[in-house]
């Protein structure tokens, strides 16, 4: 079973990577970009999805600063 996990900075938490990308886009001529947030994509193959949520909470994300969502993709 294939799982895709998306981890992103919690809303309202300073995201220096997103800020840097946002500031870089106009330099390349891309206008009208209001916000950019940079997160992390984790794809894995597992035998069962039972423990994916625990994996997300304990390792794949840091709940103090990040939120996550996951889905079965195959």
């Amino acid at each position, binding site marked *: 079973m294939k799982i895709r996990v998306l981890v992103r900075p919690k809303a309202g*938490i*300073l995201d*220096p*990577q997103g*800020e*840097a990308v946002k500031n870089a886009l106009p330099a390349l001529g891309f206008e009208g970009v209001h916000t950019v947030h940079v997160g*992390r994509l984790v794809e894995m193959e597992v035998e069962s999805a039972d423990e994916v949520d625990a994996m997300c909470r304990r*390792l*794949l994300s*840091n709940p*103090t*600063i990040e939120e996550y969502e996951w889905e079965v993709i195959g």
Partner: protein
Amino acid sequence: MRIGVTVFPGSNCDRDALYGVERAGAEAVELWHADADLKGVDAVIVPGGFSYGDYLRPGAIARFANIMDPLEEFAKDGGPILGVCNGFQVLTEAHLLPGALLRNTNMRFICDRVHVRVETVDTLWTAGCDPGEELTLPVAHNEGNYFADPETLSRLEEEGRVVLRYLENPNGSANDIAGVCNENRNVVGIMPHPERVSDPALGSDEGLRILRSVLVGAGV
């Protein structure tokens, strides 16, 4: 007194910490990450570096190393633990300290000397300092930007658990925080590197103010 220094793959301040411990007048003991054994030490330093290549997040993988189980027990029993830089990140990931360390706001690796003020001498790692004492210490980090939610921050302030505070904030840290301690005040995490200034030959030995404190704190 015997002070252990944990060594993870990618630790790079462990040798400096071992040296600093001996300069402080204690016996230095290496603690290998794969051994679930603190070798009976009286205090532990989790040193700086890039444990496990900072993969995923700084400290995220180190937090599950074998050495961490006895370390967490040691923390619960009131044992003195100091996390420096990556060690601070490891201790937040292990929930031995509150908050997290985010990327520096300027998105740059900062390698510099900073001025910090000792905000409390009521911890095992600042017991030998003077209240309000100012120290000049090296920093070298990419993720030193201390973050905690507003409730945690105000609790840290009310309970006097901000240990070191930057006089000029280099990295965007909330409330200029350079170091905090846990509720029992035995676990301390700081971004500056006292072990890198533990000998006048290195330009300064001001770091010994911190490293020697644990001897005072433990009544040695």
